[in-house]
């Protein structure tokens, strides 16, 4: 066995496609597999891809060293309301929480007099209120009335819940009542999936904590069944180690742990994408990057800051994506990469509104019937049709030439819009491409400007089938100087799975240190660390463990808290004073103001990480490049800066080598993606075979900024 090569496998199951990357641990050779997702039998789709990959490299399951998995299954359960029948147990007086609801109308919904909030995940009547009460310090105000609890939970059990979520007032401060109620629930409902709020995420704010527990219960039974079945199927194939699952935070946990903490996996696919971007940054020497992913129906943006993905504890699941905001959807408190999504992609449909302006989306042609050029019966003009008419896509090389498309149908669709607008078809196509760029920009705006980040200080990376077509236009919108397109941008998320470490996040409400007593706080950190180490030990990791600790701090007068890392060693007055100073700096940098208010500690946060062996990134020595040899043909393509269609070289990405450089206008093709480089930009191929696109010359906007008088 020892002399046979071993492999790392990353599998990312998306809505339409399952992407797999298999990397040889000895040679670093990377192979990709793309298969259709099988929503009805999710395990079968994953196993098809794994078998295909093994056949591709001529290996058996026993040669796989590590399998890391991401899936949209939990999100789909929520979006399609196909999760478990959940019973909710809470403190007497608060059982109407999800009926009163945190869902609210945003944007034009505020004018929609028939607006209806999404149905709660807890159905009407599936609630038990328990007589008990704690205060915020975890002291018992009303003892748990066990007889009452037994009776009420028995009544709930009679309604047949498949899962139970327990969240009692201030349960985070003292889990005793929640644990005792859970015992009663398990006794009355032996088959049910039970989760308690103090286990999932012990933080104050009852609505979000309860919602996190409910979401876990809602997706838990199906998700745990799925990962258990998948792990068995892999074992049958000869893979002997634990299956690993990507969390929404960019860390990985074992399938066994994931089955108990389902809410942590809700955005596993996008998290893998951000991890790939972070890895790209590490390899190329960039700490701050924006990740931009655009597919057929949605576009997503996330941020890597100081080498780490930006994390939020205020994520909402299944919210309205068009605004990319977080005001809609089910709130969860567990860490999720800070992600903005807009419902716009290659399939977005263009139309003329009653006022005579061109609009794009939110309706999408999706894959059925698809853009007009697919010839599947779609007649509406989409972004993909526009890109085809502008010469950005090659009708004879769509999906690497495997799919026949019809420019004449795009032309007919464009002509119809052109007649309404009184301009020509090219003008329509150019306008649609431009509007698509503006839509994409709004996703990036949310994760940067709205968070106090200046996108011009960041490198922009593109992935997904359509990302590289639009990314330079999006960069121009903000004045971002550098764009990077990694190799195989269509399967980047799957690669990201293999560069993530095992990680467990722990949280506690910070003890009061205003009296000068730091011992309790120090003990809290020690306990959180011990719990995380214990989990990793159960997973088989005892070496190479790194503990990251942080406090979150806010001004006494404000609600917004910021997370500040703290060093190893005892947590004392000096450590907290230094953290407070960092907090004030960070606040000033993001809000532009320096309040003099007192600060207060909110949370203790501990992340326990086990570093795992990752595939080596292949490095290619630069060679005196002659990019011209990679030009496979030329075709006319439209560029505003060039004043119209210009004869543009088309490069075959497979033939480009490190050190190759060329100026726009240029098109770079690879099987599942096309990169557009407009005039005024230059492309260079780096030693990792990334395309690095930079502006040729200065951005005039710098001088505008200098001439302006700034108040404050």
């Amino acid at each position, binding site marked *: 066995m020892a002399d046979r090569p071993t492999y790392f496998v990353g599998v990312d199951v998306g809505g339409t496609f399952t992407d797999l990357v298999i990397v040889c641990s000895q040679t670093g050779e990377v192979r990709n597999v793309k298969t259709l997702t099988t929503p009805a039998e999710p395990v079968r789709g994953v196993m098809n891809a794994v078998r295909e990959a093994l056949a591709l490299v001529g290996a058996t399951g026993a040669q796989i060293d590590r399998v890391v998995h991401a899936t949209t299954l939990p999100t789909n359960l929520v979006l399609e309301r196909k999760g478990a029948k959940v019973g909710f147990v809470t403190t007497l007086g608060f059982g109407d929480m999800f009926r009163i609801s945190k869902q609210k109308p945003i944007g034009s919904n*505020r*004018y929609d007099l028939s607006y209806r909030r999404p149905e709660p995940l807890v159905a009407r*009547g599936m609630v038990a209120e328990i007589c008990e009460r704690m205060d915020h310090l975890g002291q018992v105000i009303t003892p748990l009335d066990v007889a009452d609890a037994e009776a009420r939970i028995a009544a709930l059990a009679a309604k047949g819940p498949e899962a139970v979520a327990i969240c009692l007032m201030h349960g985070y401060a003292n889990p005793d009542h929640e644990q005792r109620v859970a015992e009663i629930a398990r006794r009355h409902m032996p088959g049910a999936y039970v989760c308690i709020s103090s286990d999932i995420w012990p933080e*104050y704010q009852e609505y979000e904590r309860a919602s996190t527990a409910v979401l876990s219960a809602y997706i838990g039974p199906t998700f745990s069944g799925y990962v258990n079945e998948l792990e068995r199927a892999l074992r049958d194939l000869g893979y002997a180690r634990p299956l690993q699952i990507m969390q929404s935070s960019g860390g990985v946990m074992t399938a066994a742990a994931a089955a108990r903490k389902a809410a942590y996996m809700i955005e596993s696919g996008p998290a893998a994408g951000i991890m790939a971007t972070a890895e790209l940054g590490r390899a190329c020497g960039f700490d701050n990057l924006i990740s931009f992913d655009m597919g057929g129906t949605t576009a997503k943006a996330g941020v890597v800051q100081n080498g780490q993905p930006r994390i939020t504890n205020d994520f909402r699941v299944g919210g309205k994506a068009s605004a990319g905001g977080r005001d809609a959807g089910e709130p969860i408190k567990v860490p999720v990469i800070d992600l903005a999504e807009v419902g716009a992609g290659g399939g977005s449909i263009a139309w003329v509104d009653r006022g005579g302006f*061109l609009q794009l989306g939110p309706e999408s042609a999706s894959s059925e019937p698809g853009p007009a050029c697919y010839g599947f019966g779609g007649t509406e003009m989409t972004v993909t049709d526009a890109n085809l008419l502008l010469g950005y896509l090659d009708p004879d090389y769509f999906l690497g030439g495997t799919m026949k498309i019809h420019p004449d149908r795009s032309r007919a669709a464009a002509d119809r819009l052109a007649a309404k607008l009184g301009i020509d078809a090219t003008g329509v196509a150019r306008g649609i491409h431009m509007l698509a760029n503006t839509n994409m920009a709004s996703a990036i705006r949310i994760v940067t400007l709205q968070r106090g980040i200046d996108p011009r200080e960041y490198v922009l990376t593109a992935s997904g089938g359509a990302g590289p077509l639009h990314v330079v236009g999006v960069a121009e919108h903000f004045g971002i100087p550098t764009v990077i397109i990694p190799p195989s941008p269509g399967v980047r998320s799957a690669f990201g799975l293999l560069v993530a470490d095992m990680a467990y996040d722990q949280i506690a409400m910070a003890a009061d240190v205003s009296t000068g007593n730091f011992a309790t706080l120090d003990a809290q950190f020690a306990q959180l660390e011990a719990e995380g180490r214990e989990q990793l030990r159960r997973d088989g990791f005892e070496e190479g463990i790194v503990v990251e600790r942080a406090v979150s701090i806010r001004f006494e007068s404000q609600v917004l808290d910021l997370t500040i890392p703290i060093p190893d060693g005892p947590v004392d007055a000096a450590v907290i004073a230094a953290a407070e100073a960092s907090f004030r700096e960070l606040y000033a940098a993001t809000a532009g103001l320096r309040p003099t208010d007192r600060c207060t500690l909110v949370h203790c946060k501990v992340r326990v990480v086990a570093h795992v062996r990752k595939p080596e990134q292949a490095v290619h020595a630069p060679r005196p490049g002659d990019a011209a040899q990679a030009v496979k043909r030329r075709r006319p393509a439209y560029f505003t800066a060039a004043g119209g269609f210009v004869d543009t070289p088309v490069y075959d990405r497979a033939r480009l080598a490190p050190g190759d450089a060329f100026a726009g206008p240029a098109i770079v093709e690879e099987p599942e993606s096309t990169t557009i480089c407009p005039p005024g930009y230059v492309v260079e191929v780096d030693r990792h075979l990334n395309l690095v696109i930079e502006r040729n010359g200065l951005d005039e906007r710098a001088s505008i900024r200098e001439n*302006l008088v*700034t108040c404050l």
Partner: protein
Amino acid sequence: MSQPTGGAVETSRGLDPILCEVVKNSLMLVAQEAGIRAARSAGSTFVAASAEIACTLYDADARLIAQTEVGIMHSAALRAMLQAVLRDHPPETLVEGDVLIVNDPFAGGVHPTDVGAFRPVFHEGRPAFYCGLMMIVSDLGGLSSGGLPANASECFHEGLTIPPTKLYRAGQLDEAVTRLICSNSRTPAKLMSDINALAAGGNVAALRLAEMVAKFGYEPLGDMIDELLDYSERLVRQGFADMPDGVYTGSFTVENDGIVPDRDYPVHVRIEIDGSECRLDFTGSAKQATGAINSTASQTLSCINYALRCHLDPTIPMNEGFYRPIEVLLPPGTVVNCSYPSACNIRLATGQAVIDAVLQALSVIDETRSMAPGATVHTLNIQGATPDGSGLWSMLDVCFGSCGARHGEDGGDGLPLLFHGQAGYERNLEGYEWGHPVRYRCYRLAPDTGGPGRWRGGAGLVKEIEFQTDVVITARATDRFDRPPPGIGGGLAGSGAAWIVNRGEAGEYALPGKITNHRLKAGDVLTIMCPGGGGLGDPRERDPALVLADVEEGIVSVEAAREVYRVVLNPDRTGIDDAATEVLRRG
């Protein structure tokens, strides 16, 4: 989204319609970014918790060219304030880096705690654009903390009035103005954070607008802005043209002003749809009140805009073109256009009456957009000494109640009036208990409080707070406390509201809807009951299955099911006695 019906639509000046759409989106992004920047920097908890505040942009002629979706409540005020600003400070007196602030309710404002800030943006030495932002600031004095006294009878009781005033001159903060306003605030540091946050938003807008001028050119940008205003006008005109010509009337009566007993304040509107134009005449509305329920003209206009947009396409950009086909008559000295120096911090009593009156009138045109009146916002300000006696604590709890029934849709239990864009569980109770010596005993939907109807009004809400120290409370029910939200089209009223001390115990007593600085002792429990919305349609026509579901959940009692909805349940309450129900409903 409505797809075009076909045929060529022309832009009025032969401009590239695509560039116009890009300019439209770009202006909105500028306004949003400025609003976000300002909210992020705010000192007051209430604002910092929101993601964005109201921001507006204007061209050199002070015409509104863009406005964010947030701050619906402030939508018309900034536009009116800019007129007052330029009257006092003509464009030729402004220089790059100036910021002007104003809160005068009688110079376009709404009440003194809502402060507007304006930043001129220069091109070739002249103001080419203005950015206006508005925020509710932490405190500017007045009878009670936060500028919300329930017993105010003049604007002087509600805080310091600031006429249009330069706060920044060429980028330099005016120290004299700063000292003056800070010495009139209970929370000067937070106040300056708030006001400087407005300036920070102005910086962003100035930069981004200058970038747009560089990108498009000043003249072409101006042409596209002209086109953008015409575009909104076209869409509004099309909306009115789609409505049948005629005169439609509506009214709603505000219950009392908290000072003068037994007087109420009707709001009347007469809406005339004439081709592509709309006239709204509020003649006949009550004379202005002694108490603070009055609405300034700009506040009333914001509420009219909201109600009209419920019947137009709500995505029509808010700009000068939106206003062109609309004529509004607000007689001075009435509750809908109060005169100096009336008090107006409880202005949403009248504002919401305006919304309900306009919606009632327009529901004749489109029955599917009917909505019965719902609850108004109730605020509770609590102050007390800390348990160890070393200092003071204060907190603000807000309860919105539920909205009225809609055509084909119940009111939404715990869903506030959509105008507010709020959720029933917006604020966590554990958070209040962390910061303050209070304990919540419950927060739940109350039975038999949603107005019965074929479509039921949203259920009312009950919250109980136990105080652990002696406290002083200011309770401020905006409206619909004694006179509950009525039903429409045969629907019945929702429940009214109540503030009850020590309910169910010896010494229980009720407070009036508007009360300032009332003392309670440690251990007292205050029960807050917020109104349920009115019902729509005859309750006897409600689907019995929906009645059963409401009974199962405790929102409707078995008795109300029988007496009001005429639905008879099985003895075990798990099903409907169809035969008995039919007999009861027929009789």
